[in-house]
């Protein structure tokens, strides 16, 4: 077939149009790239990064907690955390049943854990398990390819002393709760973070917490790690040195066994807390692994409430220890002096009611010194009556009761200083004059915490210098860039005669055949005051109505030397049969303090870092000479 040599001019227009069509097509395509690569390039760059960059936290170790001689109280030990990538939630949800089986975790519990991360912190890893058991780690390692969305991260697990040693003061860490995330001081925390939940761990969380680092890992489309992109190293938390002396704490811990109560030892010259314990205790290590429901309910339903820090939270009637405060108040107010005497026949009638003394046959005629040494109730009934409840309350508050001492521990209680105004406000009831008589010997509605008693009596013996109790040296707080809670001390003006008389009386209680004779240490200028109280608090009485276990509380507050003491120890035993143990325990602590002072040079010569125990426990009785 021959092809005619046709003119192609007929198609000229159409071909020109076709060229314009070509231009249109390429402009159209170029516009697509303009849109994606220029206008929306940041958006797609972010998506690309999210695709292939996985962020793994490098948990910062929390600072250790040390005693005053830099001996380690709370340490860290490495453990594994199991994390899931936020971007792989879908995959994770599908894998949950298999994962629950492999890890040996209840599926519902696992789902609940993942659920917690729904609301907050997009693109942060989901914490599946803190402190994974070796079996769980092994499972994950051997099933890597089945769960590409999961990662194992080495974290530092908190290691607390065993047997609940100093548990209440140290506190514990746990996963930050939803509600805590709203607190300003925890604003930077993410769900799954471990934060201090109680005690020092909570109070100084910001100091010991540190800042987690981040490792950015490149992953491929299957979610498998390809390379480490970069790494921001973690900033470890600061070690925190406490004012606590491990030796004194040890003596207190060993002296207190299964009983219920509390011990506070502090240095009234500075307010440094040397020992602080509450019983019964608990094991803070239970919390670091995520406390099981079973253990938690055991702790919270125990009627002795092991989680209560009795040294700052038990609000109990001080009993006769209050006589020190009332005596001081009466001397200061001028309603009594060295020559004031009352006759004690073993009881007396006030406002139509008979109030008996603790000794039925009476103390006879006694002055203030004798009344304190013998703890004569009738003398103080009279003292209280002449002073009056208004002034008694005023002085109690001035001497540190009815308000928080301001110790650097969370949830301190303030106790109650009753007065007509207080009763009217709280109960809308009139004050009965007879109540004044009860309050005079530290009963009735008057309640204090063990810390308050040590603080108050220490302040009186220190001539009105009330140093705020604290567990962390203010230099340590300042060095960590934190504000020191002000004020460091409160000065209450007390007359010289008052302080002299009261401290002599305290000495007499221990050394002149008084009620505190068991606290005597030959060669040491020890003073103190015993107390026994029937009633805890109005609330406790109400809640314990009909309970047969409600028994007397035994108190002893000891100090040495009697003027400007270096150490004040308040001991509380809840449960009358142990009340007599209070004075000997205070004695052991005071004795250990002075024994250590004598051998302070050889002791400090040891490497301060070593966690070695110095000689502790009951010290030979007559080493004081």
């Amino acid at each position, binding site marked *: *077939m021959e*092809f*005619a*040599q*046709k*003119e*192609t001019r*007929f*198609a*000229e227009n*159409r*071909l020109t*149009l*076709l*060229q314009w*069509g*070509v*231009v249109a*097509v*390429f402009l*159209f*395509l*170029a516009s*697509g*790239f*303009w*849109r*994606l*690569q*220029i206008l*929306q*390039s940041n*958006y*797609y*760059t972010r*998506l*690309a*990064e999210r*695709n*292939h960059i996985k962020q793994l936290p490098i948990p910062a170790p929390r600072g250790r907690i040390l005693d005053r001689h830099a001996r380690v109280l709370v340490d860290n030990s490495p453990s594994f955390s199991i994390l899931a990538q936020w971007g792989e939630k*879908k995959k994770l949800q599908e894998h949950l049943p298999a994962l629950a089986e492999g890890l040996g975790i209840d599926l519902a519990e696992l789902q609940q854990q993942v659920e917690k991360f729904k609301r907050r912190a997009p693109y942060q890893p989901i914490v599946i398990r803190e402190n994974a058991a070796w079996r769980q780690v092994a499972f994950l390692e051997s099933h890597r390819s089945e769960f590409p969305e999961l990662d194992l991260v080495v974290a530092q697990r908190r290691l607390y002393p065993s047997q609940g040693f100093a548990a209440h003061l140290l506190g514990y860490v746990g996963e930050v709760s939803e509600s805590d995330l709203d607190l300003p001081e925890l604003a930077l925390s993410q769900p799954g973070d471990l934060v201090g939940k109680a005690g020092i761990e909570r109070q100084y969380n910001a100091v010991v917490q540190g800042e987690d680092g981040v490792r950015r890992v*490149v*992953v*491929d*489309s*299957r979610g498998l790690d*390809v390379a480490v992109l970069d790494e921001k190293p973690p900033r470890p938390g600061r070690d925190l040195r406490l004012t606590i002396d491990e030796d004194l704490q040890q003596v207190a811990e060993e002296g207190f066994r299964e009983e219920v109560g509390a011990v506070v030892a502090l240095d009234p010259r500075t307010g440094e807390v040397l020992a602080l314990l509450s019983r019964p205790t608990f094991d803070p290590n239970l919390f670091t692994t995520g406390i099981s429901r079973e253990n938690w309910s055991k702790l919270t339903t125990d009627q002795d409430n092991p989680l209560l820090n009795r040294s700052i939270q038990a609000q109990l009637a001080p009993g006769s220890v209050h006589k020190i405060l009332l005596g001081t108040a009466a001397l200061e107010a001028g309603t009594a002096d060295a020559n004031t005497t009352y006759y004690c026949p073993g009881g007396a009638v006030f406002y139509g009611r008979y109030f008996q003394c603790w000794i039925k046959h009476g103390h006879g005629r006694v002055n203030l010194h004798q009344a304190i040494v013998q703890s004569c109730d009738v003398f103080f009934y009279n003292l209280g009556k002449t002073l009056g409840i208004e002034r008694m309350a005023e002085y109690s508050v001035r001497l540190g009761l009815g308000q928080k001492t301001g110790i650097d521990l969370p949830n301190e209680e303030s106790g109650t200083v009753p007065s007509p105004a207080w009763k009217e406000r709280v109960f809308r009831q009139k004050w009965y004059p007879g109540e004044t008589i009860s309050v005079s010997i530290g009963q009735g509605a008057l309640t204090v915490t063990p810390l308050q008693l040590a603080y108050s009596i220490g302040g009186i013996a220190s001539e009105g210098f009330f140093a705020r109790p604290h567990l962390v040296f203010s230099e340590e707080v300042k060095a960590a860039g934190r504000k020191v809670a002000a004020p460091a001390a409160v000065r209450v003006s007390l007359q010289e005669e008052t302080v002299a008389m009261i401290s002599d009386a305290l000495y007499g209680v221990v050394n002149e055949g008084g009620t505190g004779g068991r606290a005597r240490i030959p060669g040491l200028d020890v003073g103190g005051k015993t107390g026994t109280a029937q009633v805890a608090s109005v609330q406790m009485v109400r809640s314990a109505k009909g309970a047969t276990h409600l028994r007397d509380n035994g108190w002893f507050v000891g100090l040495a030397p009697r003027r400007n003491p270096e150490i004040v120890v308040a001991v509380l035993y809840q449960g009358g049969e142990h009340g007599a143990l209070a004075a000997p325990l205070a004695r052991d602590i005071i004795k250990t303090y002075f024994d250590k002072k004598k051998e302070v040079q050889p002791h400090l010569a040891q490497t301060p870092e070593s966690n070695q125990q110095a000689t502790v426990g009951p010290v030979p009785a007559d080493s004081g000479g």
Partner: protein
Amino acid sequence: MGKNISLRDFDWLLLGILLVVATLGIVQIYSATEGTRFAGAHLRQIYWVLMGLALAFFVSLYDYRSLLNYAPWLYLAVLILLVATLVTGAEISGARRWLRIGGINFQISEVTKLAIILLLARFFSGPQEGKLSWADLGKVAVAVGLPAVLIAWQPDLGTALTLVPMVLVMLFVAGLKLRYFALMLLVGMVSLPIAWQHLKPYQKERIGTFLEPEQDPQRAGYQVLQSKIAVGSGQLWGKGTAQGTQTQLRFLPVPHTDFIFAAYAEEHGFFGVLLGLLLYFAAAIRLVQNAQMAPDAAGMFLIAGIAGVWMFQVFVNVGMVVGYLPVTGIPLPLMSYGGSSAMVAFLAVGLVNSVRVRRFVN
């Protein structure tokens, strides 16, 4: 036959442009397959390009007019091969697209385009002289429809569909009145719902995904999304050869074949894309110019058809990469890895030059 023709008249510019495109493709194939099970694909692509070059020169020496004589026979042969593909072809992921001859897999559908172009070039340069009747249109429809149905049957709807615009371009150049195009558009719209009934599930899914990409980000929508991420994150300058995270970490699907331009855009950025698009644009314009210079109508139609196929493939593939068009399995000419596609492209270059070198003859 080759007495008065000279290689000096060969379209060196067009060839140069296409070789640059092929080189960009080879580099990108290397970048996208290094360290994967496709490693070494770039070497095979080099062989094919070299073979293609030889083929182009060889074909250009051959007079297209004698080829047009054989056009009906070629067409018939292609139809038979398409049927053979359907019957004996190697089944790969549910589709029979490859015919195995002498140990080599051929994609007959690629050659089909050229056979149809030849057939139509011969037909349009016939006696009707720019005035097409309804009967002519019907003949064209049957001529294109038969192989289109056979290809769609494989199933390879994308390739089947490329036949349609190719024919439309030729009809356009042949001077078909614009109202006829309007009518065809109408018929197409009406027949769409009927065609939908006969689509395979994955085809429906692809189109559904195109209309609503967010609906299923895990499957078909995933490809589109990852392609857009690759392109967008390339920004102005790109991430560098073999540095594209979407490409290298396998987020981008088939980065060496259908989505090669996304991989290219990621690693070379907007400027790289402009260069690439300009090359394709220049090639297309150059093709149309060659059509304008053709010594006869048949040659002009031949080149116009080739230009149509070229433009449409670039349009559909790159449009898919930027998310403008649904996902189809249409490769990007000369960049996507694939022997059949490369060979056919160079075969077309040969045909174009076969016309070109004879423009002063006679």
